[in-house]
């Protein structure tokens, strides 16, 4: 089923013409209104009308996380502040988050893309969608929410956690579709099994949209078997609206990325050189319809590849493979983006602890931060150490938006390697 059959099956040359037209208009827009891009173009001696074909995209500079940081809070804004309808933020490395602005048109467009994704998997206005992603500054929950409302489904804005309540809602309101992280999906499946609930008999779940964390085909299989439903992979990032950037169709073989809204490039993560379709590299996206904050050649740091062959569903928008890793040290835990530098910065502000730490990721979503005591941080009192441990956990929670377990260890006991310290040990099986 198609939400927008015409666009979704638009023949490649027409799609590429549309891309070029939108790219030119986006470039003109940022060249006219965004000082950051004006400076970038000037530094390269680029005239805005220098983009005459899609290959000219390669002449434009990349936009990186550092650029978002340097232009914080609104240096990339291309509209008046009063035309901004919504602000979302995404984790940054240096204490300030990344600021993402959306106009009314942007919000509606994001919902449109989400609607395409939902209809593509067979969701209709008869469905009940329980949104188990975190509402708030994150785009994850809200963008799905608006998309589901657009197609007329009944949306339950449950948010994550509180599994008893989630189960109650599913039982009493006949939830058919869930939007959830892979770690919580597995946890929840286990939870209901312990309650003696058989999802196939006792619940009406048909589909799960799983995203926000990378996970394997094997994990997809586990979730499908445990909850008796079909799992569809979802890809998105706040910088590109959030979820709805790319999604699996009923074929469940790669995620269609909406090429009338984004230009896809795969590049070598170290050199930035474009790679041919099929090769694995860093995904770079250029927005074509974003009004408040367009982004040119944004380095997502996500590692993936394009599936060159056409999909049996008939959609002409190409598919992405599963994300296999990151080109930076960002972690995703419980659906939340975390940079080890954020942990470091919190610890630096506490004289009782040293700078040495280790992040352990285990099980489904357990996060433990081991922290070395500073030389002067011990006064012989167990209670003080317990308070310190708890204080660190709370401060970390305030910074990274999820609460890890904290373990204090003696100074000099954490491994120190030559060169760059290994700060993360990730043994999760997702």
């Amino acid at each position: 089923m198609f939400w927008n059959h015409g666009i979704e099956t638009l023949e490649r040359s027409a799609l590429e013409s549309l891309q070029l037209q939108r790219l030119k208009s986006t470039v003109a827009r940022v060249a006219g209104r965004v000082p950051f891009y004006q400076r970038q173009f000037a530094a390269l001696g680029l005239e805005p009308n220098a983009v005459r074909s899609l290959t000219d995209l390669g002449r434009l500079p990349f936009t990186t996380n550092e650029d978002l940081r340097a232009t914080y809070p609104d240096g990339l804004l291309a509209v008046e502040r009063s035309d901004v309808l919504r602000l979302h933020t995404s984790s940054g490395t240096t204490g300030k988050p990344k600021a993402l602005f959306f106009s009314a048109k942007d919000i509606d467009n994001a919902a449109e893309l989400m609607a395409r994704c939902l209809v593509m998997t067979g969701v209709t206005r008869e469905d009940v969608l329980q949104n188990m992603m975190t509402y708030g500054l994150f785009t994850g929950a809200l963008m799905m929410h608006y998309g589901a409302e657009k197609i007329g489904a009944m949306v339950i804005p449950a948010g994550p956690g509180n599994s008893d309540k989630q189960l109650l809602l599913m039982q009493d309101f006949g939830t058919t579709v869930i939007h959830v992280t892979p770690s919580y999906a597995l946890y929840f499946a286990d939870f209901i099994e312990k309650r003696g609930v058989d999802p196939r008999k006792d619940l009406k779940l048909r589909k799960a949209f799983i995203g926000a964390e990378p996970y394997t085909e094997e994990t997809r299989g586990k979730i499908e078997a445990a909850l008796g439903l079909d799992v569809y992979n979802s890809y998105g990032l706040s910088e590109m609206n959030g979820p709805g950037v790319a999604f699996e169709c009923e074929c469940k073989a790669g995620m269609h990325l909406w090429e009338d809204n984004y230009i896809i490039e795969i590049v070598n993560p170290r050199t930035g050189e474009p790679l041919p379709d099929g090769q694995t590299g860093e995904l770079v996206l250029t927005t074509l319809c974003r009004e408040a904050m367009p982004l040119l050649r944004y380095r997502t740091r996500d590692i993936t590849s394009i599936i060159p062959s056409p999909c049996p569903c008939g959609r002409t928008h190409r598919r992405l493979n599963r994300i296999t890793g990151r080109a930076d040290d960002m972690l995703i835990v419980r659906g939340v983006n975390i940079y080890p530098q954020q942990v470091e910065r919190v610890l630096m502000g506490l004289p009782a602890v040293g700078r040495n730490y280790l992040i352990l990721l285990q099980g489904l979503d357990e996060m433990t931060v081991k922290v070395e005591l500073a030389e002067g941080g011990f006064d012989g009192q167990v209670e003080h150490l317990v308070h310190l441990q708890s204080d660190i956990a709370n401060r970390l929670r305030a910074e990274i938006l999820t609460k890890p377990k904290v373990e204090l260890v003696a100074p000099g006991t954490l491994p120190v390697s030559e060169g760059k310290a290994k700060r993360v040990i990730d043994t999760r099986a997702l």
Partner: protein
Amino acid sequence: MSAVKLVSVFAENKPGQLAKTTQVLARADINIRWVTIATTEGFGVIRFLVDQCDLAWQRLKQEGFTVSLTEVLAIEVADRPGGLHAVAECLGRNQINVENSSGFVSHNQAVLLIEVLNIDQARAILSEQHLRLLSQEEVMAV
């Protein structure tokens, strides 16, 4: 009168940690009068009353341990029924809040070690109450 100090050592809550600490003390020929371990999830604090606390601190520090010295008061307690009660009552009556405490007996003499927030104030109050406070040397000789 020399203050009574305990040597506190931070240790991760796993087997062998106590032995690592006691090995250092044994090699330095340090005599332990009393020891206690307080643990919480993940780590603990081992506290010793030794005959040469400055040497103990130095040697443990040299060997890479996380150490701290904590000053405590050592109160002489009559070694008979009611002996501890008399001391406890005195502390309560004088509003002295005890943070940590431990007691032991040897050769018909009993000692109560107490840790308080304001040690000078507690020392002054207890001296007026005719309780005998022991010095480091006296405690070791008990």
